[in-house]
């Protein structure tokens, strides 16, 4: 269920700080789906996406003092989610990520035609897992989540200019992998 609350994120954060539990619920319902999509595409196992999303919000609400409203709340959530995923990845030594099989890589026969099939999505996912983590995250935040480079910079702890460079490197590498 998506939240139809008209209040902005900063307004809801302020209300939550004042003890309004409903404000916290609105924030979760507004961003949980996007976080789930992002974490799933970034490599989290389907079985642990729920836990990671919940952990993200729990840490966010517990550490709201760390968010001073300079960047977007959404960008800050993605930053926490990315760090949690990174921690999980380290703990499991890569087992959290979708394994890549050789047949997942493009065969160069007909790039345009390949994209027309469902197979293309699987190949894109595989290609994403081959990217450096930062490039993968920036690509997803820009393309899947529609974040501006300013928000992406908040999410990955970088600058908007660096985020833009990472994005274009990611696109270039994905095109090479999928051509």
């Amino acid at each position, binding site marked *: 269920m998506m939240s139809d609350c008209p209040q902005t994120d900063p307004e809801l954060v302020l209300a939550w700080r004042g003890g309004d539990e409903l404000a*916290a619920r609105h924030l979760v319902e507004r961003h949980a789906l996007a976080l789930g999509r992002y974490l799933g595409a970034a490599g989290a196992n389907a079985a642990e*996406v729920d836990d990671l999303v919940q952990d993200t919000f*729990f840490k966010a609400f517990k550490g709201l003092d760390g968010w001073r409203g300079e960047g977007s709340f959404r960008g800050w959530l993605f930053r926490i989610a990315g760090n949690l995923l990174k921690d999980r990845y380290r703990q499991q030594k890569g087992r959290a990520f979708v394994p890549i099989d050789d047949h997942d890589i493009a065969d160069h026969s007909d790039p345009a035609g390949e994209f027309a099939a469902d197979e293309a999505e699987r190949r894109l996912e595989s290609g*994403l897992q081959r990217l450096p983590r930062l490039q993968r995250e920036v690509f997803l935040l820009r393309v899947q989540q529609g974040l501006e480079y300013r928000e992406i910079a908040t999410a990955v702890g970088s600058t908007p200019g660096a985020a833009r460079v990472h994005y274009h490197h990611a696109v270039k590498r*994905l095109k090479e992998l999928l051509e």
Partner: protein
Amino acid sequence: MSECERLSEQMPDVVRGVGNWTAGDFAHLASCALCALEWRLVERGAALGADSIVDPSAIATGVLARLAADREAPRVVRRIPWRGGAIGLVAVAAAAILVIAISGHPDSTTAVPSAAAPIAILPELQNLSDQQLEVVQASLGPTAADATPGLVPHLGDLTESELEDLLRSEGGQ
């Protein structure tokens, strides 16, 4: 900025419906294989995870429950019955150590020019007579401070009996 770069910058916005392609853009996409490939890449990327099964309402309930449990946790600690006693014991012991250190110091009578310092350390001693104070000091027994003037003894150096004496002396007996 080349036409390819301009379109590349716009793709994430257009795929989300924030912008639109012009007729000229469509013509470029039809004639440039790399831009066409990138456009399809962006379209697929935007659709990734669209079948996510995360239930935002359930997540919200879970998060709020965890936050409530987290807020409750410190209260449980405060309910531990011996915690208040332990804090009191530590406070009394700390005060007693200071008294021992001062009374055991060879220059304590000249180093403290007035009663201001003892008052600041343990105000209730101010109400005792000299005789009562001697009783209190005597009840503490010999300490490391007595043996080696100037050293502050540690509570861990005291026996159970000495600790009991300490507590009794702080009771004003």
